[in-house]
């Protein structure tokens, strides 16, 4: 089937292609699977379709073996990811998510590295009402996972509200334009009546019945901030401003983080700039690029199915020609731009007469602990806040668009609940990011979210001794090489190999414009600290003015620079 539909397929279609093909536009037997009462899980092939509906089946891996002994199945539960273009949520939406997390989830909210909410620990029989609860607050989870365009990221720029509003609007439109058209989601979760329609091409005019070969990620950046890590996106739009006005976007293609341990045919890659388009051309360009990947992406080997491999295989020029051919017009030459950082700027800032408070949320986990009632504090703010919430690409949170007269009230609430901009932390911690990993992520090979904070405690001692606590260094950890926390762009990066063991990478660019390089393989905490200590001490002594740690380790010879992903393993 697949090989007849698409040119250049070099192997039989993967199992996933068959599942999609037989799913009747993502319906599968999800209704029956969720009605079944004897397992808290659903069959394996249904979990693969469920992703397109924004949810992963997971289990509490902390108790997996224990439960097996107890003659209990794994503690199956579902992660639900919201589609939230640009990470902008209204206070009502915040309150809805907060409530759903506490009633149907595990009492926490995860702000993701792609600027959206994740609920964890939702039980099978609570799925429908949870999704309906989101729907009532005008949120959905369509295409939040799966082989489709994922949540569209957008710069969370708190300085220029007008520009942000305009750029955010484009990210939202891209998100809506590339949304699957199947009514499966509405039928399964929202009880919509099924309407019979056998005309395939009208059901999914952009995707077709097999959707994409693999996930597809889009981001929109506004220089000088590269918070969305534009070069990690399959497709990127870099806003070009002149005289404070949006002129259009530089279009980037072929970035991506994921790889497979031990398979050098897989690698993280930086996106390349393809050209420039005007704002009104954005949707057309996005659609056509997506269809190139739809037609030319590898549907046989999922490890090599991301757009980055298509771009590297076909070459940038070919992509541009194919795009121009599909557009019927030529995209323009890229315009000059420059980034200077990819981290967040914490605390209160004022932009265009509105105030914005960026709060530090360690690894994006919103929860209450005994000594830090963060979740409660944010709930209290949401109850009175007139602006919006912005989830940043670094898993932090901006209380955004606060009017001058409301600022004191927000300030008081933040103080009352101890909500922190994190500036008492080291600049390393402020620039840290970890994926979820254990206990819920099925892919995790090592701890990440639960471990990175304590590793940073120890690294901070070294920073303090060396007097570089205020030095901004990007540190990222992922529990597996799929790279949800974009670890290949960490000046210090860790990718899990086994419990307590990580590959250590060094030398990415502070602006998110250079990949890091493997420095040590399969090491534990003791060795990590033994490696980092002299390196940071030397950095403190030898660093040149404005020199970032990622640049220093290359100059000092710890690692070679990786200008292109194809050299990542060499």
């Amino acid at each position, binding site marked *: 089937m697949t090989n007849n539909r698409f040119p250049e397929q070099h192997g039989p279609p993967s199992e996933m292609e068959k599942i999609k093909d037989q799913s009747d536009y993502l319906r599968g037997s999800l209704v029956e699977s969720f009605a079944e*009462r004897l397992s808290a899980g659903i069959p394996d092939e249904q979990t693969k379709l469920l992703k397109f509906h924004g949810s992963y089946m997971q289990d509490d891996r902390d*108790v997996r073996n*224990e439960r097996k002994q*107890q*003659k209990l199945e794994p503690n199956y539960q579902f992660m639900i990811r919201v589609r939230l273009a640009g990470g902008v949520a209204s206070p009502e939406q915040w309150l809805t998510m907060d409530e759903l997390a506490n009633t149907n989830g595990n009492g926490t909210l995860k702000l993701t590295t792609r600027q959206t909410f994740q609920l964890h620990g939702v039980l099978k029989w609570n799925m429908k009402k949870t999704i309906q609860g989101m729907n009532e607050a005008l949120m959905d989870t369509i295409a939040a996972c799966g082989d489709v365009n994922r949540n569209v990221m957008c710069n969370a720029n708190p300085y220029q509200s007008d520009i942000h509003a305009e750029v955010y609007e484009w990210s939202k439109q891209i998100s809506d334009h590339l949304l699957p058209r199947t009514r499966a989601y509405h039928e399964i979760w929202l009880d919509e009546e099924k309407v019979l329609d056998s005309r395939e091409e009208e059901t999914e005019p952009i995707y077709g019945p097999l959707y994409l070969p693999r996930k597809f990620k889009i981001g929109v950046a506004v220089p000088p901030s590269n918070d969305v890590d534009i070069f990690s996106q399959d497709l990127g739009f870099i806003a070009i401003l002149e005289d404070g006005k949006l002129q259009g976007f530089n279009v980037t293609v072929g970035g991506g983080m994921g790889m497979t341990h031990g398979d050098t045919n897989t690698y993280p890659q930086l996106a390349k700039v393809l050209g420039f388009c005007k704002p009104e051309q954005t949707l057309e360009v996005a659609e056509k690029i997506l269809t190139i990947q739809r037609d030319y992406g590898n549907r046989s080997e999922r490890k090599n199915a991301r757009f980055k491999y298509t771009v590297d295989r076909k070459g940038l020029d070919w992509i541009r020609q194919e795009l121009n051919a599909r557009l019927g017009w030529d995209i323009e030459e890229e315009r000059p731009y420059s980034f200077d950082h990819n981290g967040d700027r914490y605390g209160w800032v004022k932009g265009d007469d509105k105030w914005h408070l960026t709060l530090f949320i360690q690894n994006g986990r919103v929860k209450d602990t005994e000594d830090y009632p963060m979740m409660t504090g944010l709930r209290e703010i949401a109850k009175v806040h007139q602006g919006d919430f912005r989830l940043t690409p670094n898993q932090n949170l901006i209380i955004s668009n606060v009017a001058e007269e409301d600022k004191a009230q927000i300030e008081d609430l933040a103080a009352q609940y101890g909500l922190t901009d994190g500036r008492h932390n080291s600049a390393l911690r402020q620039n840290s990011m970890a994926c979820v990993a254990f206990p819920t992520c099925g892919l995790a090979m090592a701890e990440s979210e639960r471990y990175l904070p304590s590793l940073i405690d120890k690294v901070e001692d070294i920073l303090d001794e060396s007097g570089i606590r205020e030095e901004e260094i990007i540190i990222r950890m992922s529990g597996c090489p799929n790279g949800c926390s974009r670890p290949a762009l960490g000046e210090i990066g860790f990718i899990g190999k086994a419990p307590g063991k990580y590959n250590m990478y060094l030398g990415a660019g502070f602006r998110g414009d250079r990949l890091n390089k493997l420095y040590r393989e399969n090491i534990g905490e003791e060795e990590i600290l033994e490696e980092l200590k002299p390196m940071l001490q030397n950095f403190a002594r030898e660093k040149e003015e404005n020199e970032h740690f990622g640049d220093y380790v290359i100059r000092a010879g710890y690692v070679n620079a990786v200008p292109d992903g194809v050299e990542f393993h060499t």
Partner: protein
Amino acid sequence: MLQLKEKNSPFNQEQAEQLNRVLPTLTETQRIWLSGYLAVPLNGAGIEDPPQTSEAGGTAAANPTREVTILYGSHTGNCESLSEEFAGKLKEQQFNVTVSSMDDFKPKALKKVEDLLILTSTHGDGDPPDNALSFYDFLHSKRAPELDGVRFSVLALGDSSYEFFCQTGKEFDQRLEELGAERIADRVDCDLDFEEPAEEWFQAVAEELDTGQNQTGDVPQAAPGLNQTSETVYSRSNPFNAEILENINLNGRGSNKETRHLELDLEGTGIQYKPGDSLGIFPENDPSLVDQLIQLMDWNPEETVTINKQGEIRALREALTSHFEITSLTKPLLEKAAALTSNEALKELVDPENSQELKAYTEGRDLLDLLQDFGPWDASVHDFIAILRKIPVRLYSIASSPEANPDEVHLTIGAVRYDAHGRPRSGVCSVQCAERSEPGDKLPVFVQRNQNFKLPENEETPVIMIGAGTGVAPYRAFLEEREENEASGDTWLFFGDQHFVTDFLYQTEWQRWLKEGVLTKMDVAFSRDTDEKVYVQHRMHEHSKELYEWLQSGAHVYVCGDEQYMAKDVQETLLTILKEEGQMNDEQAEQYLADMRQAKRYQRDVY
């Protein structure tokens, strides 16, 4: 030889005629043997353990003329095994004995009964056991025949911590008298430690049966070679110390419950059981509770005390740990304790006028409470020991099939823990299993047969199994058995507990059996996962139509677990389904169920 007559002998006419027929036929040797035999006291040891004779041949002699009918009402199997034990002993004495459960006995045959022995337990709130129900109803109805000429005696089993102690036995005893039967031995009401009083009752009854018969006591020549082999036979009176092979908690983290799965080693014991049977455990009291008692009373833990009528002695601590009940209070205990204190409050409490207060006091309290509340005590440790009940055996439905697990027996035991009267309390045996039983430790056990909870003999018969919590245990045994036997009949399991995630006992096993077709259908109800509480009976009702079809196709229905709520509601639901789906009225539905019970198609193991 003298012709025996009523006038010249102590025999009645019938007996005299029999003797006159037999005696002239005897050889010299037989006469000598018989004279010696008759010289031995009839209730002596010689009778209790007579040699096996059936194969000896040539011993045909005058059988006793009156037939003995033993009817039992048994819930956990105690009355059933006692009945069979006594029947065996009587048969050895050449009595004609029939033994059956009350419900297996045709009520019409009651008219022909001569000597009737009733053994029955009492259930819940003074109710008869399931397999005594219809006989009980018949006997108490107007259709019950006059029983002139019938001789009877009743053995009642019960638990004195219940308000209606031995109620069913008392009622049978009274009713038989009302119907004109003659009581040959007084009823004996047994508490949980029933073995000794039951044996005493049997001796008294046996003696009366003898004298009443004027029988010749036809016991033929000794045949020592035919004595039973010396291989150890394990039983309630000789429990086996089974090693624990596995002891796991079946409830996942975060559960309100703790349900232990125990696997015990029976290798080499010859102990046999069938799915549906129970395993008895002789438990031990919590040592810390024993120590608190000893400390409170300032007793010497090493002092020796007498633990039974045979005069065996043990150190006090061991006696309190392993031999006596210290965790529940009964009315008789309080009455006896009242004599050991000068505290007026206790004397007042046991006054018959205050029976409600007494009942309220005993609930949730134990010996430590009693001793703390009603001092100063004016008695020795021996006085206290003398008023205590023996520690009762705990019975658990077996959760394994011997076919699937040769040489093993598995149990499903819910740990009982609660707070009462300001102190945490725990179930003696269940918490011993949960907290003080490691693999490698041993538990004294015996098999208690339960004929009232057995798979249908025909393997094609469909089976509906309903159980909540640990009530699911025998169904695991059932399915293991059916898997081993490759039984073809359909099976349908209803299971309920609190939470799906943590309390789905044996979840992966049911899932496997479903996948492999050993289990045809399964429906579950988890009461605390939803705002509205859902129980097994709700799931049954949801499937009314199909369930009725199964019943109509001859399905056997099993109910195991909590009696007070679950079993009652399940029964109500079965009646509702019969009425709704079978267009029956109340009476017809009741009758349908009664017929099912009679046909052993409705079996319950509830507690």
